[in-house]
């Protein structure tokens, strides 16, 4: 088994944390996880990506080859398409936050941000499956828009694509945070889970 998951977003959106929750939960399941991050540009508005590779004991490098992402969890629509074009294939399943984060060139009026409909149409054409909603709005319900990363992680968990029990995610979140942040993120995870959990529970299609 080798499952390749990419978490894509913009620096500051909490990419790294989302990948740590998934990989940490995988290790709790007795699986082998390896994560390759790009950070440093994090918090500074650049495109960021985490490569998460889950195996049963097989040792692989931290980078996913071109065209070999099985799953793409995108915290931002434009980043979703950017990554899908390079790392996706016709079997890739996509979970996406619909809330745009505008590049500086768009804010300055030099470039136009594509419409969400166009983005979703192209992503839908390229990928096998796209599940999208505004994780930022759901995070707002949980208490803070910055928890969109954990909402999306909850939605990813809810799909059941990954062979990881929900409690392993919850325990990982509980370990990574303390106090109010723990409560917020556990709430965000559950709200994200609700967005996909029921739908997929009827037809689980685990990748392993």
């Amino acid at each position, binding site marked *: 088994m080798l499952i390749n998951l990419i978490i894509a977003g*913009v*620096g*500051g959106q909490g990419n790294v*944390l989302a*990948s*740590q929750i998934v*990989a*940490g939960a*995988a*290790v709790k399941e*007795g699986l*082998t*996880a*390896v994560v*390759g*991050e*790009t*950070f*440093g*540009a994090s918090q*500074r*508005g*650049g*495109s960021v990506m985490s490569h998460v590779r889950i195996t049963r004991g097989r*040792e*692989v*490098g*931290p*980078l996913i*080859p*071109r*065209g*070999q992402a099985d799953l793409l969890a995108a915290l931002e629509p*434009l*980043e979703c*398409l*950017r990554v*899908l*074009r*390079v*790392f*996706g*294939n*016709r079997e890739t399943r996509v979970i996406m936050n619909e809330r745009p*984060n*505008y*590049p*500086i*060139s*768009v*804010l*300055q*009026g030099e470039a136009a941000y594509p419409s969400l409909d*166009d*983005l979703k149409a*192209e992503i839908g054409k390229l990928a096998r499956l796209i599940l999208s909603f505004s994780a930022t709005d759901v995070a707002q319900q949980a208490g803070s*828009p*910055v928890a969109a990363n954990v909402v999306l992680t909850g939605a990813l968990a809810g799909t059941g694509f990954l062979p990881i029990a929900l409690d392993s995610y919850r325990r990982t979140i509980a*370990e*990574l945070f303390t106090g109010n942040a723990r409560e917020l993120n556990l709430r965000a995870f559950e709200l994200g889970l609700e967005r996909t959990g029921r739908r997929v529970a009827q037809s689980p299609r685990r990748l392993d």
Partner: protein
Amino acid sequence: MSITGVKTDRPGQAVLLTGNEAVARGALEAGVGFASSYPGSPTAEVLSILGRLAAEFNLYAEWSINEIVALEGAAAASFAGVRALCVMKPDGLNVAIDFLTTLAMSGTKSGLVIFVGDDPNAHSSIKEEDSRYLAKLAHVPVLEPATVAEAKEMVKVAFELSETLRYPVIVRGVTRICHASGNVVLGALPPREKAPCIPPEERFLTNPGAVPAYHQKQEEKLRRAAELELPFNRYEGPAGAEILVIGCGPAFLYAREAVASLGLTDRVGLLKLGLTWPLPEKLVLNRLRSAKKVIFAEETDPILEESVTSLAARHWSAVGEISFFGKNSAHVAGPFGPGAGELNVDIMVKALTAVAGLPVPEPAVSPPQDPPFAPGVPVIDRELAFCAGCPHRASFWAVRAALELDGRNGFVTGDIGCYTLGLGRTGYYLLRTAHCMGASVGVAAGLSKLARLGFGQPVVAVIGDSTFFHAAVPALIDARYNQARFLCVVLDNGTTAMTGHQPHPGMGINAMGEKAPAVAIEEVVAGLGIPCTIQDPYDIRTTVRVVFDLLQQNQLHVLVLRRECALTAARQTKKPRVYVDQERCLGDACGCVRFCSRVFSCPANIWDAAAGKARIDEAVCTGCGVCAANCPQQAIVVEGRE
């Protein structure tokens, strides 16, 4: 990303650790007693973790003023019988190299391990430096982990090796180790008991009268290192393979995955080296004897490649005819050419395909950008930018405005930190030089000294607070002594922000979280006899005037623009609400050409296309209110500011 895994005392348990966490854990399992570093990507988290665990594990950890002081401290600990870890970025090894070259001569006592994190592709650095060159220069052995789990084991073995040889040992990580995560099986955490002590007969000298003898001893230690049996050097694949991959670090795993994906497992041998300098020659020679084609998988420069080709040349009669493929032959190369950028599986697939004479493989899955899926929607590039509310944006705006008012074609020199982004759009392209830590001050001083030759442009150096302590002080002493006349702007956001908010001498706290005497920048500057002004950049109108007035003085002056980093401030205080009163905003009829979103360009200032008015993205805004001061219609409202 959790300290819990690093300190868990359950030998045998598997936990997820980052490479930096694994290095910290390896040091703890080796009984480290002293750890020092200056924050640098991609290694900054190692010392952060050890600092937080210092009390619990009875060790000493410090953020040193710079890397050479860090290494001198670590060496002292080693002399006194305490195992020491010194952590740095490759640029830091440049700073520490003068001491390291002599430390290798004097030798050490207790284990001294230097962990250096190279950054192929410069994901978070100013350059792609291969620190192995400096290891060779200093005659110091280099170990390179291929996985996060191996990083932990290697640090432990490096301490042993250092003690066996009484010699410093470098462990070279790369970004795909430091900032990667993986399963790590925890080992035992030994107690540390012995009190540091230096017996009367022990000395750690270099001696100008006996240098060749010292040098001879170093060569002897390297020979011994090359002959050690290490678990990190191993071969997998068919016996007598004609195609041999020699690799190290994560690049070895890329090569192995490429071999498997091309179905070459039966044809290609894989020699993994954990010790890459000095080269374990016997082991490599054994494999070269059967090989006809050798491919190299290593990050950045062709160091292994050159060691192995040189070895083969010395033993040509024994190894026979071999073709070598790597960076020198341009077979192992990404889009920027050999040695530039980082490796991945796809690059190794391309190299192996060519060397094995295979047809270019049809990918099992084709990326959707290939036909028939021609790209439709434009994917706009995302430039790096100062965070919303970043005080640097206000500072750069003020310096830019003052220079325009001044009108003498002022020249701004830059330095290393978040504010290096000031070379781009987000800093209004203000920076005209960007080199190494502290260079802004030395270059500015040098330019201003050209006044005697007729140079008439005002000069401004822009440097951060942590970088000021690390590298600006000698250059400022030079500036005073040699009568340079420029404005040194210190962007003091009260932390080492770029690498993750590590403490520095100005902050009144140390790496172990203890209170420490704060060294105020203005006190240092006053001690140098240089006039100093302090200003809050959020008060942007006053700041423009202050910068302008100082430019008119044509004197050496330090201006501290002091305002806490927006990221740390956001963690602590309830932020004011900032919004656009769309009744007041005139939109494109204003004549401000969308000043807030287009010109000032904070990511929180967005354009509401439906209304044709400016808007604030409240998910991004930190509530600094600087844009409100700039709006000609005063349409931006700040609510709830203290």
